[in-house]
C-alpha cells in the first residue's frame, strides 16, 4: 500500500503501543542544548538512570551564549553556570558536545544538518520547538519538553500520538524578491497559527523541488508557528548532494546503500493524505508581520488591518490587542514603519545562503543613521565561510555589527536584546510580545533581504524597490 514518508518513518521506529494508546517511538537522533536539558539531567541523576545510547545524542550551546564575548566566565553568571552545567553533564554521560572551542558550535538546528547528523528517514527530537527544521531532509523531527528529554536520554524513545499528514503544495514560480521566508509566512497567514494542530506538514510542489536545502530548512523551521508539530520535504538529489561528504554522513559503500534507503523513504505516488492544500507561488508576495503572532502578516504592499473591518469579534479583539502593543495605526501602509533595530540571524535565517544573498545587495550600502544592525551567523561554520568569502566585511562596511554564532536576539536569553519599545526588523521566527528581550519590544518578521532593506532605509521597506530587483 502506498504510504507517506511520515508513515514509513513512524512505522520503522515504532517500538510498541503503550497502555494509553500512544506509541513508544524510537528516536534515532537526539539533539540537546543548554536551556532545556539541565533539569533532564537532574532527573536522570535523581532516578539513578544511565543514558541509553550516548552516541545518538549530540549537544551544543546556543541560546545563552553572548555573541560578543567568547572568553569565559561570561558576564552573566547564570549563563556561565548553564554552559558549565551542560559541559559537566556531557562529560558525565559520555555525550558528544560541540562546544565553542571545537569550531563546530552553533544553533542546534544549523549544526545538525551542517555536520551531516540530520539524515532522511530518521526520527529526531530536541528540546526546542524549531526542531521541525530537520524535516527539510525528510526526517520526522519533534520539539519536546524537558521531561521528554529525560525519556529520550534514558530510553532513546518517547511516548507520542501519531500525527495526521497535510500535504502543502506550492506550484508555479516565485516572483523575483520572494524568498522561502515569504513562503512560510504566507502559509501561516493562510492556514492560521493553530491550523496545523494535530498535523505533520509535508511541503511539496515545484517550488520545493527547486528549493535548496537551506530554503527548505527555513520553511520547515516555522512549521510550529503554524501549529504543526513537524514539517518535512521528501528527500531528493538536492538532499543527497547536500549531505555528501559531511562529517557524519555515511561514506563509501555505506553512502550508496544509504542513498537507496533515502530514496525509498519518500512518500509513494498515490499515497493518501489527511488533507491537501494547494498554493500558487505567484500569489506569494514579500511578507511582513504587523502583529504579535506569526500569522498576522501582510504583503509588503499591504496595509495594517483595521479592527472595525474585522470579520468577527474574535478577529477584531486580536487586531486591537496587536495594534495596541505594536503601536501601529489601522489602515496605514506597513511600508514606511520606522525601525530601530535590524536583526539578521536565527535558526530560521542564519545560514550561509542568507548572508550570501544579502551581501549581494548590501555591498556599497550603509545602515541608516540611528539603526542598530546586527548580523549573527547561525554557526561557527557559517561564520568561518562568510569570513573566507569576505561576506563579514560587506556587512561590517555597511555598518552591521558582525557577531559570533548563537540564537542572539531571536529570543534574547543573552545580552542581545531590544530596549524599551524598540521596533526590530527581524529574520527570526516569533513576534510574540516581549520575545526579543524587552517586555515592550516590538518585532516585525521578514526575510533576510527585507531586513537589509529596512536596515539601509531605516524603515520597513520593499526590498524589490530598495535594491532594484525586477522581473527581468
Amino acid at each position: 500500500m502506498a504510504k507517506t514518508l511520515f508513515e514509513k518513518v513512524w512505522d520503522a521506529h515504532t517500538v510498541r503501543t503503550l497502555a494509553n494508546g500512544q506509541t513508544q517511538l524510537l528516536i534515532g537522533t537526539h539533539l540537546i542544548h543548554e536551556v532545556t536539558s539541565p533539569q533532564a539531567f537532574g532527573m536522570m541523576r535523581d532516578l539513578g538512570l544511565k543514558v541509553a545510547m550516548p552516541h545518538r545524542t549530540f549537544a551544543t550551546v546556543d541560546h545563552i551564549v553572548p555573541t560578543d564575548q567568547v572568553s569565559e566566565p561570561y558576564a552573566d553568571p547564570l549563563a556561565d553556570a548553564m554552559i558549565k552545567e551542560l559541559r559537566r553533564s556531557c562529560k558525565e554521560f559520555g555525550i558528544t558536545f560541540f562546544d565553542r572551542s571545537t569550531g563546530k558550535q552553533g544553533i542546534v538546528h544549523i549544526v545538525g544538518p551542517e555536520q551531516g547528523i540530520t539524515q532522511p528517514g530518521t526520527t529526531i527530537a530536541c528540546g526546542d520547538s524549531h526542531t521541525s527544521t530537520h524535516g527539510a531532509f525528510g526526517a520526522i523531527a519533534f520539539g519536546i519538553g524537558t521531561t521528554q528529554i529525560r525519556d529520550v536520554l534514558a530510553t532513546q524513545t518517547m511516548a507520542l500520538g501519531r500525527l495526521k499528514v497535510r500535504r502543502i503544495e506550492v506550484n508555479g514560480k516565485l516572483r523575483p524578491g520572494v524568498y522561502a521566508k515569504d513562503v512560510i509566512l504566507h502559509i501561516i497567514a493562510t492556514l492560521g497559527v493553530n491550523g496545523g494542530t494535530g498535523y505533520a506538514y509535508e511541503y511539496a510542489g515545484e517550488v520545493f523541488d527547486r528549493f535548496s536545502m537551506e530554503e527548505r530548512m527555513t520553511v520547515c523551521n516555522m512549521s510550529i508557528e503554524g501549529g504543526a508539530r513537524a514539517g518535512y520535504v521528501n528527500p531528493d538529489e538536492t538532499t543527497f548532494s547536500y549531505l555528501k561528504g559531511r562529517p557524519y554522513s555515511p561514506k563509501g559503500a555505506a553512502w550508496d546503500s544509504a542513498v537507496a534507503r533515502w530514496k525509498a523513504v519518500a512518500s509513494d505516488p498515490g499515497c493518501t493524505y489527511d488533507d491537501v492544500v494547494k498554493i500558487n507561488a505567484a500569489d506569494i508576495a514579500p511578507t511582513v508581520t504587523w502583529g504579535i503572532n506569526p500569522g498576522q502578516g501582510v504583503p509588503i504592499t499591504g496595509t495594517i488591518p483595521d479592527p472595525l473591518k474585522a470579520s468577527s469579534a474574535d478577529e477584531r479583539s486580536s487586531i486591537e490587542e496587536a495594534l495596541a502593543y505594536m503601536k501601529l495605526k489601522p489602515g496605514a501602509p506597513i511600508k514606511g514603519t520606522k525601525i530601530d533595530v535590524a536583526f539578521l540571524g536565527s535558526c530560521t535565517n542564519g545560514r550561509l545562503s542568507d548572508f550570501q544573498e544579502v551581501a549581494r545587495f548590501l555591498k556599497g550600502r550603509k545602515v541608516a543613521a540611528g539603526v542598530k544592525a546586527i548580523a549573527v551567523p547561525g554557526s561557527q561554520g557559517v561564520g568561518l565561510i562568510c569570513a573566507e568569502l569576505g561576506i563579514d566585511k560587506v556587512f561590517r562596511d555597511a555598518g552591521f555589527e558582525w557577531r559570533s554564532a548563537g540564537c542572539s536576539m531571536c529570543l534574547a536569553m543573552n545580552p542581545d536584546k531590544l530596549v524599551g519599545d524598540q521596533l526590530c526588523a527581524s529574520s527570526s521566527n516569533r513576534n510574540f510580545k516581549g520575545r526579543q528581550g524587552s517586555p515592550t519590544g516590538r518585532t516585525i518578521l521578514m526575510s533576510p533581504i527585507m531586513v537589509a532593506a529596512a536596515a539601509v532605509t531605516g524603515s520597513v521597506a520593499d526590498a524589490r524597490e530598495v535594491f532594484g530587483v525586477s522581473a527581468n
Partner: protein
Amino acid sequence: MALDKITRVSGRAVCVPGNDIDTDRIIPARFMKCVTFDGLGEFLFYDVRKNADGSDKPHPLNEPRFKGASILLSGMNFGCGSSREHAPQALQKHGFRAVIAEGFAEIFLGNSTTLGMPCVTASREDIARIAAAVEKDPTLAVVIDLVAKTVSFAGQSAPIAVRESARDALVNGRWDPIGELIEGASDASAIATKLQYMSA
C-alpha cells in the same frame, strides 16, 4: 513509583482571557536561565503582571480575590510557541492543577500531561459561564471530572473534551511514561540495531 490517579481536579478558578497565549507570555525566556524548575512560579505571566519597576499591572493573577486559584481558564490555542516545559512548570509551581481552554497547542498539552496537569477543552460559551460564575463568587469550587468528562460549578455542569491518550494516562496514574518506556527499552534497542544510521 506509583503515580496519583488524577480523576478529578477541584478548586477555585481564575480566568486569563485571550487567544493564542504563547509560552513566552506564560514564562518570558529570561527566566529560563536556571538549572532547576524551582522558583519559576513567581515569574508566571511576569511581563503582563508586572511593570518594569516590579509594581503590579492590572491582571487577574494580581487580584487578591483570585489568590489560591488552581484552575486556569483561557481561550484558543493556549500555550502556543516554544516547547519550553518551563511554561507548564511555572503554572504548576504557581499552584495551578489544571487548565480549561478552548484549545491547546500540541507540545504544551503533551508537556502538561506528563506533569500530571490536565488540559481540558470546553466551548467558549461554557468557559464564559464558568468565568462569570467565578467573577461573581471567586471562592466557588470548580470541579473537573475526567471520568464523567464534565466540569461542574455553582450547581451547573458543562461537558469537557480531553485527548483520550491524556485522559487515560491521567485517570490510570500513568501520566509520567518513564516506567513503561523503560520496560520497552530492550525492544527499542533491538529495532535500533536494525537501523543502519543508529548503529554506525
